[in-house]
């Protein structure tokens, strides 16, 4: 792309010469004959460099740069001067003019100075952009912290209540720890004692064993989480195609669960571009399984769950998109303020448990998934998107869990 240079020169001869010198393939020169015209042109277009004569009727070259700076225009500037007056040059430099070129200009030297000025201007702008980006990142970070503080602070009572509610419900509801607590009392109250021993019915005993097994599963889950948090995951290199196959395999293995609500899983084709990621096949299988089951539980009956693959220059993205039914907050999908909280342990977005899916429902599933993906040096995020696949132009709100695995250089 050509560098754009604005030339402000009231001397038609000199102006035409400068315009012609810069009229080659590297620059796009625009000639104006006064400071006022230069100000107007600068408002209408963005230039990489201003070359201005020092002496012009009306606004002088220095005044022109001062006015541009006052308007917040940081354009790099070169001033043309016939003056040997050092104080004029010093004044020009003080208002932020990058260089001065004595008249008559020497074409080759002039071009070199123009190039230098444009390069320096770009470096300054790049540095400013970097500073702005850093500031924006910090602002976003601060905003996120404030938001978290706000959500957790504002709803602290509710959050704590919900958390303890969920914990209590998790341990009491259905089978598992709740059963282990209540069943012994039941046995004590209902069973006969024969020769100093409880005579327990097989039904009751089976229930006790089942609860113990579920409690054991929960303990194993806690152990897994503990290992994920404390230990490093053993990763191996795998192609994107292998990850795609893994997802397809997990989806195929869930047919019996999909039948519960007459749902189906549609996995997109893998990205055309190849790539390598590092995975633990066992843990990634667990994570994908958890995400698919999660999608099934929260999706409407007879809906489709989409798994979409996308590859960027740095990551493999895998989105699990489902069409959720109405949640306890009266909305569909993941409530915005819960996008992070749903990964918190024991945080449950619904209070009811569908035992047909055979999951623990302690509110640990997504926490485990997050820890697994983090163990892959990846990220997971949840949010809502508008899905136009199923409902045409009107679209429909869909929940999206997107996991990102970093690609490695091979």
């Amino acid at each position, binding site marked *: 792309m050509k560098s754009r240079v604005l030339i402000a020169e009231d*001397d038609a*001869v*000199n102006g035409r010469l400068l315009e012609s010198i810069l009229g080659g393939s590297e620059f796009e020169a625009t000639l104006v004959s006064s400071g006022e015209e230069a100000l107007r042109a600068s408002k209408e277009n963005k230039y990489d460099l201003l070359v201005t004569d020092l002496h012009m009727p009306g606004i002088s070259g220095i005044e022109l740069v001062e006015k541009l700076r006052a308007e917040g225009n940081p354009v790099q500037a070169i001033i043309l001067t*016939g003056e040997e007056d050092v104080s004029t040059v010093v004044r020009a430099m003080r208002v932020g003019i990058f260089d001065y070129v004595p*008249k*008559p200009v020497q*074409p080759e030297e002039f071009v070199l100075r123009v190039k230098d000025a444009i390069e320096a201007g770009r470096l300054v702008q790049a540095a400013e952009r970097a500073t702005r980006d850093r500031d924006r990142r910090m602002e976003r970070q601060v905003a996120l912290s404030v938001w978290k503080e706000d959500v957790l602070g504002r709803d602290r009572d509710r959050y704590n209540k919900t958390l303890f509610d969920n914990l209590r419900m998790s341990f009491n509801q259905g089978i598992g720890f709740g059963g282990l607590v209540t069943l012994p009392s039941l046995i004590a109250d209902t069973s006969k004692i024969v020769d100093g021993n409880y005579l327990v019915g097989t039904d009751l005993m089976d229930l006790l064993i089942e609860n113990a097994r579920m409690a054991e599963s929960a303990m194993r889950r806690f152990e897994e989480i503990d290992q994920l948090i404390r230990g490093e995951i053993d990763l191996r290199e795998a192609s994107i195609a292998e990850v795609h196959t893994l997802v397809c395999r997990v989806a195929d293995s869930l047919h019996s669960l999909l039948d519960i609500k007459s749902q189906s899983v549609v996995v997109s084709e893998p990205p055309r571009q190849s790539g390598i990621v590092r995975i633990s096949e066992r843990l990634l299988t667990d994570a994908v399984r958890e995400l698919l089951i999660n999608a099934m539980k929260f999706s409407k009956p007879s809906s489709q769950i989409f798994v979409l693959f996308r590859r960027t220059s740095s990551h493999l993205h895998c989105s699990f998109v489902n069409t959720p039914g109405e949640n306890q907050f009266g909305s569909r999908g993941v409530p915005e303020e819960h996008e992070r909280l749903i990964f918190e342990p024991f945080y449950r977005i619904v209070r009811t448990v569908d035992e047909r899916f055979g999951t623990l429902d302690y509110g640990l599933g997504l926490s485990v998934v997050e820890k697994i993906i983090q163990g892959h040096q990846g990220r997971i995020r949840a949010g809502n998107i508008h899905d136009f696949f199923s409902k045409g132009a009107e679209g429909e709100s869909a929940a999206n869990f997107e996991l990102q695995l970093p690609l490695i250089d091979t």
Partner: protein
Amino acid sequence: MVIDSQKKEEIVNIGGEGFFLEMLDKFIAQAIEILGQIRSAKAAGNADQAKSLLHKLKGSSLTIGADDFARHVLRAYEKAQAGVMVEDEDLGLMDACLVELQAHRKTLQ
């Protein structure tokens, strides 16, 4: 030498012979106009205006390489910097150089 040959070559190198002629025509037309303005400033006793116009003329004459003309302009400009109004003699010498330049231009295609 009406036009400095090195300067002419520089300009030709930038845009060719045609571009040099365009520049020369532009210079002659601008010089005629500015000399008229200097005479008006002199008649009005506006030394600052005359000095500013001489400065402009100095720049463009050096740009085109009209060295003889530039020499007379420079002398008048130095006087103007010392607070002396441009003299008729200097203006006459500039006129003469300009006529010479116009004649030279006619020999060029």
